[in-house]
C-alpha cells in the first residue's frame, strides 16, 4: 500500500477547504447582498410605508434645512421617496423590449436550429454570441449617436402618423430620449440570450416528431407551430422570463437613452422615463450628500425591490428551462 505523505494530506485538506469555500460563495454573496440592501432600506420602509410603491414624487428634501420626523425616522424637510415612476419605467421598457425581442429571437432561433448548417450556421451562431458580448455602454453609445436621433427625426413621427390613434402612440414625439429608445436598446441586449436558449430548446425537439408532421403534409411553419413550439413551451416561457429579468436589471444603456425622467409618469412611447436600475446609478452621487442618510436608504429600498423582482423572474425562468426528460411520462 502506498503511504500517503503528511504533505499530501495537508494539500488535500487545503484543497477541500478551498472547494467548500468556492461552493458556498454564491450563496454567501447572495445572502449578504440581500441582507445589506434589506437592512439599509429599513429606514425608508418605515418612513414611506406603502407609499414608496404608489407615489411618483422622489424628492430628497431640503438637505440644508430643518428635519422632519415620521414613524420614528428623521428625514430632511420635504423629503419624499416615491418609486412609482421608476417601477413603471422598468416594467414598460422591459415589456417593450420583450415585444420586440421575442419575435426576433424566435425567428432567429428557428433559422439557427432548423435552417442553416455548416459554415453559415457557425457564423450566425458566433454573431449571436458576439452580440451578447457587446458591453452595455457601447450599445448605449450607439443608442445616443444613432437610435435617439433616428427616433426623434423619423421613427416617432412615423409611428405617430400611422398608429397615432392608439393611445400610447400619439402625442408629443419628443427628443428621442424615451421609453421607446430604452425598449429598443434593451431588446438588443436580450435578443442573444432568448435566441440562444430557444435555439437550444428547438434542437431538442425530436426530428422524428417533426418528420411526422411533414409526413402528413404540414408546411414547415405548421410543424413549428403545432409540434416544435408546443414541445418547448415551458422552456421557452422560461427563456422569455430570463430575458425579462435581464431587461429589468440592465442599467448603463438605459441610463444613456432613457431621458432620465423623474417625478412624472410617461405620457406616451416618446416620453422620457427612468428605470430603477438607471436611477440608482444616476442618483447615488447626490444621495450621498444627504447627511441624514435617508436618500441612500431610499435607493437601497429601490435596489431591494429590483433585486426581489429580478430574482423572482430568474428563479421562475430557471425552473421552467430546467433540463428534463419528456415523452413516456404522463399524468394519470
Amino acid at each position: 500500500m502506498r503511504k500517503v505523505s503528511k504533505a499530501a494530506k495537508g494539500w488535500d485538506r487545503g484543497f477541500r477547504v478551498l472547494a467548500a469555500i468556492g461552493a458556498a460563495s454564491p450563496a454567501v454573496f447572495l445572502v449578504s447582498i440581500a441582507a445589506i440592501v434589506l437592512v439599509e432600506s429599513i429606514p425608508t420602509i418605515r418612513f414611506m410605508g406603502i407609499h414608496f410603491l404608489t407615489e411618483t414624487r422622489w424628492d430628497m428634501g431640503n438637505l440644508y434645512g430643518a428635519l422632519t420626523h415620521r414613524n420614528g425616522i428623521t428625514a430632511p424637510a420635504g423629503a419624499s421617496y416615491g418609486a412609482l415612476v421608476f417601477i413603471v419605467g422598468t416594467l414598460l421598457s422591459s415589456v417593450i423590449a420583450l415585444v420586440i425581442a421575442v419575435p426576433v429571437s424566435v425567428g432567429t432561433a428557428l433559422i439557427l436550429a432548423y435552417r442553416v448548417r455548416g459554415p453559415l450556421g457557425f457564423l450566425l451562431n458566433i454573431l449571436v454570441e458576439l452580440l451578447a458580448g457587446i458591453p452595455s455602454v457601447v450599445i448605449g453609445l450607439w443608442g445616443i449617436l444613432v437610435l435617439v436621433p433616428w427616433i426623434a427625426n423619423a421613427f416617432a413621427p412615423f409611428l405617430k402618423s400611422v398608429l397615432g390613434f392608439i393611445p400610447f402612440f400619439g402625442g408629443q414625439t419628443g427628443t428621442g430620449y424615451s421609453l421607446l429608445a430604452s425598449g429598443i436598446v434593451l431588446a438588443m441586449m436580450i435578443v442573444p440570450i432568448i435566441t440562444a436558449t430557444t435555439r437550444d430548446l428547438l434542437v431538442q425537439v425530436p426530428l422524428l416528431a417533426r418528420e411526422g408532421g411533414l409526413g402528413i403534409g404540414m408546411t414547415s411553419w405548421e410543424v413549428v407551430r403545432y409540434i416544435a413550439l408546443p414541445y418547448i413551451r415551458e422552456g421557452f416561457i422560461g427563456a422569455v422570463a430570463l430575458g425579462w429579468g435581464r431587461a429589468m436589471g440592465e442599467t448603463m444603456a438605459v441610463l444613456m437613452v432613457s431621458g432620465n425622467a423623474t417625478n412624472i409618469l410617461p405620457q406616451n412611447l416618446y416620453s422620457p422615463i427612468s428605470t430603477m436600475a438607471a436611477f440608482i446609478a444616476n442618483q447615488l452621487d447626490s444621495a450621498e450628500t444627504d447627511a441624514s442618510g435617508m436618500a441612500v436608504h431610499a435607493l437601497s429600498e429601490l435596489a431591494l425591490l429590483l433585486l426581489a423582482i429580478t430574482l423572482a423572474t430568474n428563479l421562475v425562468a430557471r425552473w421552467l428551462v430546467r433540463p428534463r426528460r419528456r415523452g413516456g411520462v404522463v399524468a394519470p
Partner: protein
Amino acid sequence: MGKSMTVRRLNAWYGAHQVLHEIDMDIEENRVTAIIGPSGCGKSTFIRCLNRMHETHPQARVEGDIRLAGESLFDLDPVDVRRMVGMVFQKPNPFPTMSIFDNIAIGLKLAGVRRSSELRDRVERALRMAALWDEVKDRLAKPATALSGGQQQRLCIARALAVEPEVLLMDEPASALDPISTMRIEELIEEIKQTYTVVIVTHNMQQAARIADKTAFFYQGHLIEMDDTTQMFTKPKDKRTEDYITGRFG
C-alpha cells in the same frame, strides 16, 4: 382509389455519399409492394424519396424522375405530395404534445375539415381502420405518449390514413412490435389495399411473402430485382437475391 407511381433513374445522396443508384421502378396502384434488402442498402432512403421527405435532410440530394399517376412529384409542392403520399415511420412518432384524438384530427383540420361532427367521425373511422378504436375510445383526450409502442404505431398508421392519401409508405412499420400487433398491421394492409397503394419496407421475408403482391430487392443502393412476390421467393433470377432470401447474408 390508389394511384400508381413510376420511378426512373433515381439517384440519391447524403452529402457526397451516393445511397441510391439509377433506380427504375413501377409501383402499381392498389397493390402492396414490398422493399427488401440488407441493412443500409437504401430502402428507407428510397421510400423517403417517394414523398420528397429525403430532401428535407440538409445534406440530401435527389436526381431523377418520380411520377404519381403520371404527374412529376417535382412539379408539385412537397406539401401536396405528402398529402397524397402518406408515410408511416420505422419508429412510432406520435406528436408528443397532443392527445390521441388531436394526433389524428390535426391533419384533418389542416386539410380544411371544420365541422366537429365530421372530425369525430373521421377520427373514429381512421382509428377503426388501424384496429385501435376499441383500445382508445374511452381515453381519446389522453396524451398519445401514454400508449404502448404498438398502439403508438397503429396511431401513426391511423394518422396517415385519416388524411386519405393515395399511396401509403410504410418503413418497417412492425419492426418494433409484438407478434399480435404485427398481425393486426398485416391484416390492416390487406384491407386497405382496396383503397390505397402500399409500399412497405420490411426485414421480414415471411411478412413480405404474406402481404406483398410485388417484391423489390435492393442491394448496396441498386435495385437488383423486382417481380411478383411468389415468383421472387420461388425462382429469383439474380444470385444475390437468392442468397439474401435464403438467408445466406443480410
